[in-house]
């Protein structure tokens, strides 16, 4: 059989057997997957796992992104969104202003608000609670997903409370889940080079685990295509997998494609299309205990994300509105994709589009008949 022959030629026969038998892949297997030049063969393997879990189902969500502040004291070299405290270009949305942005789209059947921002040392603990309350009030039926683990670390610092107490307060104010950002790459070396002021890998994982134990599910990300190496990426994936074994609180893994434009490391060329697809496939193969793998089209380009539906991805994110973080450095990216465009892409790829809410419950079809906002 030619597919088996091709897998053998690519040196993937034993990994193929593990995948078919449902066995966990080792870190060494992960390294070999990164080293395998046969890209479609990786897609073939990842697709076995994807179809085993989800068949043709491809999820999308209608969400609105709100970035409440761009002021940040973390100075990460890979970021073009932040400005330092005291910079004239800095902004903070007051809770009412942030809520007004949500009300702007009151007619659009959005099911999720995705809200993140910089680590702004000026903001008091009460600000975050008020922000959540205002957002929830503006759109009570929308699921509120907010604050990366990095922001949570800051919120805990100013709250002077335990993580458990902070999560209880945030939940009471309306927080329902936590996005996966800020993980970058779990590596001391990369951490020292690119984001030394931020919480390190183990802090990130500890906060995630605490969130899960407090009843807040989260996502997990990995920012690739800058200075990281393969060993560091495999370590990142295996650590995520270990924490997931303990808590089961991760919903989705999202590999994030680095965009160098207008960052401090803009001399780097940025990830290639093959790497974008490779990260999706290896994420699907290594993270056997993660239910979902998302391809974030706003960073990958919709062309790559559509192909990724055959490389392990079962979630195409959504019709994003107002995503400011990569808009700053990647203006060519479309900010919104109308629902029709998104569905056309999924259908053309031979998959079945299914609208989900933030917790991957199906959104009843009756509410999906709408005119596109974009």
């Amino acid at each position, binding site marked *: *059989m*030619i*597919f088996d*022959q*091709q897998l053998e*030629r690519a040196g993937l026969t034993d990994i193929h057997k593990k995948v078919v038998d449902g066995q966990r892949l080792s870190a060494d297997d992960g390294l070999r997957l990164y080293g395998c*030049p*046969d*890209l*479609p*063969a*990786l*897609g*073939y393997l990842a*697709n076995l796992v994807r179809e085993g879990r989800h068949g043709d189902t491809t999820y999308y969500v209608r969400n609105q992104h709100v970035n409440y502040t761009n002021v940040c004291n973390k100075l990460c070299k890979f970021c073009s969104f932040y400005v330092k405290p005291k910079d004239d270009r800095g902004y903070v949305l007051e809770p009412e202003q942030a809520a007004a942005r949500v009300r702007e789209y009151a007619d659009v059947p959005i099911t999720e608000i995705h809200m993140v921002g910089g680590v702004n040392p000026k903001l008091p603990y009460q600000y975050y609670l008020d922000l959540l309350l205002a957002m929830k009030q503006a759109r009570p039926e929308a699921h509120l997903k907010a604050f990366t683990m990095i922001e949570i670390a800051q919120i805990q610092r100013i709250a002077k409370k335990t993580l458990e107490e902070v999560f209880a307060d945030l939940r009471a104010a309306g927080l329902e889940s936590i996005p996966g950002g800020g993980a970058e790459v779990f590596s001391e070396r990369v951490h020292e080079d690119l984001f030394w002021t931020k919480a390190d890998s183990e802090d990130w994982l500890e906060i995630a685990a605490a969130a899960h134990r407090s009843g807040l599910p989260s996502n997990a990300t990995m920012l690739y295509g800058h200075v990281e190496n393969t060993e560091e990426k495999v370590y990142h994936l295996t650590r995520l997998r270990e924490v997931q074994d303990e808590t089961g609180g991760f919903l989705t893994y999202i590999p994030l494609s680095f965009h160098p434009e207008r960052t401090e490391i803009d001399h780097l*060329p940025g990830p*290639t*299309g*093959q*790497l*974008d*697809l490779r990260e999706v496939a290896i994420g699907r193969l290594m993270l056997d205990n993660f239910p979902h793998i998302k391809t974030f089209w706003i960073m990958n*380009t*919709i*062309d*790559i994300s*559509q*192909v990724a539906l*055959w*490389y392990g991805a079962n979630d195409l994110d959504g019709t994003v509105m107002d995503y400011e973080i990569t808009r700053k450095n990647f203006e060519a990216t479309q900010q919104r994709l109308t629902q029709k465009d998104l569905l*056309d*892409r999924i259908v*053309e*790829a*031979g*998959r079945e589009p299914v609208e989900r809410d933030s917790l991957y419950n199906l959104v009843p079809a009756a509410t999906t008949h709408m005119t596109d906002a974009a």
Partner: protein
Amino acid sequence: MIQDIAEKVSLGERLSFDDARRLFAHPNVAELGMLANAVRRRKHPASVVTYNVGRNINYTNVCWVKCDFCAFYRAPGSDEGYTLPDEEILGKIDELVAFGGQEPKSNEILMQGGLNPKLRLDYYERLFSTIREHYPSVQQHCLSATEIIYIAKLSKLPLAETIERLRDAGLDSIPGAGAEILNDDVRDVIGFRKDRTQEWLDVHRIAHGLGMRTTATMMYGHVETIDQRIEHLQHIRDVQDEKGGFTAFIMWNFQPDATDLGADPERWNGMKATGFDHLRTVAVSRLFLDNIDHLQASWVTQGPKIAQVSLGYGVDDFGSTMLEENVVSAAGTSHMSDMDLTHMLRLIEDAGYEARRRNTRYEMVATAPQLDALHNVKAQAQAAAS
């Protein structure tokens, strides 16, 4: 679902029209890629992706054909029409040679233009022989079937004699442009004044008969059906069976910006073909065109990401460095500025291949291109544009 086709591929058997139809309907692109990759590996076992040092020179934009998918042409009489003076063409070639070096026939000029009623056979004979005389390192990979048919008509000569005279003047090989979709119903809709399917094929047949090498292309993603794409591939494969003169197949999708067809909802549905469609079309082409050696990446239209991914879908060549491109770029494609040789080499190596320079006949070229010279050309081009 495609086990029997996979079996045929495994045994090296020729695929049928119906096989191609089923492959197009098979959404698992990773599987299509694996099949195409198997064929590509069989034809080219070495882990090498080639590229070519070349420049597109568009000697005139005056064209009376007015194809509705084209944003490059200007009708005769337009203020914006031009024909490049010889000195300017030779100046562009000087820049190319400074970049590519002196190895014989190692630098490709792809010189194409509109169907300009003022330019007859003597114009081309003079230009080609001048270039041949001054630039032994240059391969004149010029014109298209469409231009040659027109030159023959203007000069009231048979096609074979026209091609022979062009060859004798210095034309080395002929690019496959103007094929679009080789189906007369489609041609009627998108560019009704253009040559017919059989006329396009005849030019290539005659050139192959004269011992010349040509390439074949396909422009898809406009009004054609999947069956018409396969019909196109079938025509190319049939002609290739006769004399084997096609060196490579190159495909790209219709770029709608600033074209009449792109603005006409009666004819075009507004859906620009996707990267997904590109990859499966590349893979099916690799599988169906069993008698064509090379497939080129389409980075100008697809951009660096999908172009690189296509290396896993049957593509073994990254095409030309294209120091200059004007035609597709006029219809909104902006990837020219994304790509230079350094970037191209990185994409090839990142995909796990060794990059090697070739000439138009796909023979390896030992001379390394001079990147410094390239930077000078780009700087001058930018200065001229601003």
